[in-house]
């Protein structure tokens, strides 16, 4: 087990990168504490898999260092880093049985046969493959093959970290919940550092203690699921996390008030801003109130999500989503007001700290 530090990592796949646009990872400085459960969350192509492969050593970074418990391992090959990694698509050794697949990483590390058998049986149970243990991997379904991959990731108990690269993509939804719960359980018992890459916010928020949100080759926020919800540091986080995402509206600021057309929204304090910065107001749909006073709006459509309903409105020509609790009805001539606890100001996409807002 180890603490992992990434120092000033930059990575470009093409040789001779010139501008920031040539880098798949622009600049990453991030530590993963020993025993933590982390999720790397972001859209496809944001660099999360690259970052994972840099940790495991499958990819060598163009610049920067990787440290395991303080040792520089940047030049160390994958097999010497003692890392387990599970890939997005099932990678199994077709010609071996399920049991042999799980024993393979242990046999290669010269573990005693008795210990191997015991450990393999534990892991078979963990990924619920005991019934298939002596079947050849070749004839199994994609689900089952991915369970083998997961099992091979979990079978070594002395690894520095286990890295998961969207491991549940090919798995059926109901099995997904079950396996994610198993992973959480393994983490609780073993306290192995785990890094879990995903583009699915539910998966990230339910798996991790700390979520690392990536966007366009950079880490935009690291925090607990609650942090990401209550204090999104970047408009991308606001937009990406939450369903539906945060309402982002172009705005201007006058002292401690935000101007939206001829209407104004009060802020907790007067921010200090550069005149050249692009300003945006961000409010999650959970903090948009519909009543008979405020900014007039028209309802475009309603969405029923079961426990709550989402009203999609047009306010001063801008789309705004509002969340209505069960039984709450939208007024005939709706007017919008914002709950001060959920009002955020963004300057050039980054959150402006207003002190009192969003407690």
């Amino acid at each position, binding site marked *: 087990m180890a603490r992992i530090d990434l120092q000033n990592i930059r990575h470009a796949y093409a040789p001779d990168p010139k501008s920031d646009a040539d880098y798949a990872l622009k600049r990453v400085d991030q530590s993963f504490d020993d025993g933590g459960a982390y999720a790397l969350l972001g859209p496809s192509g944001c660099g999360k898999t690259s970052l994972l492969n840099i940790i495991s050593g499958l990819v060598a970074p163009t610049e920067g260092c990787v440290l395991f418990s303080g040792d520089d391992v940047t030049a160390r090959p*994958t097999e010497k880093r003692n890392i*387990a*990694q599970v*890939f997005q698509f099932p990678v199994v050794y*077709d010609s071996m049985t399920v049991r042999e697949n799980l024993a393979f990483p242990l046999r290669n590390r010269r573990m005693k046969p008795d210990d191997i058998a015991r450990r393999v049986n534990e892991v078979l149970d963990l990924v619920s493959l005991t019934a298939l243990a002596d079947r050849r991997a*070749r004839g199994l379904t994609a689900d089952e093959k991915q369970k083998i991959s997961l099992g*091979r990731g979990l079978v070594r108990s002395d690894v520095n970290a286990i890295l998961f690269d969207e491991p549940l993509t090919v798995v059926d939804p109901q099995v997904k919940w079950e396996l994610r719960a198993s992973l959480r359980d393994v983490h609780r018992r073993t306290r192995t550092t785990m890094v879990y890459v995903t583009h699915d916010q539910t998966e990230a928020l339910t798996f991790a203690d700390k979520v690392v949100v990536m966007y366009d080759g950079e880490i935009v926020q690291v925090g607990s699921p609650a942090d990401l919800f209550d204090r999104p540091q970047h408009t991308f986080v606001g937009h990406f996390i939450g369903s539906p995402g945060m309402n982002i509206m172009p705005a201007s600021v006058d002292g401690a008030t935000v101007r939206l057309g001829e209407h104004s929204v009060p802020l907790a304090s007067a921010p200090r801003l550069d005149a050249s910065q692009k300003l945006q107001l961000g409010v999650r749909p959970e903090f948009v109130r519909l009543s008979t006073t405020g900014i007039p709006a028209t309802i475009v459509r309603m969405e029923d999500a079961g426990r709550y309903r989402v009203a999609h409105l047009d306010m001063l020509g801008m789309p705004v989503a509002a969340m209505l609790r069960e039984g709450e009805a939208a007024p005939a001539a709706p007017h919008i007001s914002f709950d001060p606890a959920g009002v955020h100001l963004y300057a050039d996409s980054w959150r402006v700290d207003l002190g009192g807002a969003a407690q």
Partner: protein
Amino acid sequence: MKPVNQQAWFLVAPVLLLVAFTAIIPLMTVVNYSVQYVATNAQFHWVGDLWYREVLHAEKFWNALWRNLVFSGIILAIQIPLGVLIALNMPRKGWGVPTCLVLMSLPLLIPWYVVGMIWQMFGRVDIGLMGVMLRDFGYNYEGDPMDAWFTLIIMDVWHWTSLVALLAYAGLVSIPNAYYQAARIDGASGWQVFLHVQLPRIARVLTIAVLLRFMDSFMIFTEPFAVIAGGDPVFLSTELSQTVELGQRAAMSIIYFLIILLLSWVFYTVMTRDDGEPVQPGGKSGSAS
């Protein structure tokens, strides 16, 4: 119950017609000849299995068959491992890829008879490069059947190993990178990567390579004909070409054809016996494999 409509059979008719003309009718004419005696005045006389009995009782036939089997065995034993070895060492990217592919394809583009002529001259002890070099070791393919064997095998390896290499290469480049990455993470050695990642994933194309090389080498005719002009060693095909009686030729052709069919079937069944493992009921088949 729905009424049964038989009109769909018309859609199959063109295929049936095509197969009839390309395979069934020509083959059946040969079957027809093999049970008749053709007299000089073009009269056909029914002789039953006479020709078959004659062929199967001839020592020359069994000797030729044995030689064919040994020849194919040696060819497979050399070309398959050598082809895989070459494929493993071919470059995977850069300018080396097209260069290698073109170089490997060259022998495959040379007509059989020309290959025979090349080696016939190459091996001549008076003017041939190889012949002159090996002359001092007593090499003479025209006089010594073992030297003729040696020449034929070298020639076939030179001509056809690239086919195996190209097929194996195609199989190797189609292996997703994740398999190699996973093997590195699992701490597998190079030999284990070959055994557990590469070999299982090129097994299918290797089956095709083995079948093609077996059939072609078992049917070898043009090259020995060009090199030794029907002298020793005598293969089934060269033996066939020297058989005079039409009926006997036909019977031998049928037997030859059936042997190839049988052996190809045996090869195929043995090599693909792992593929048919039942997928458990209700499960999707492993689509990502």
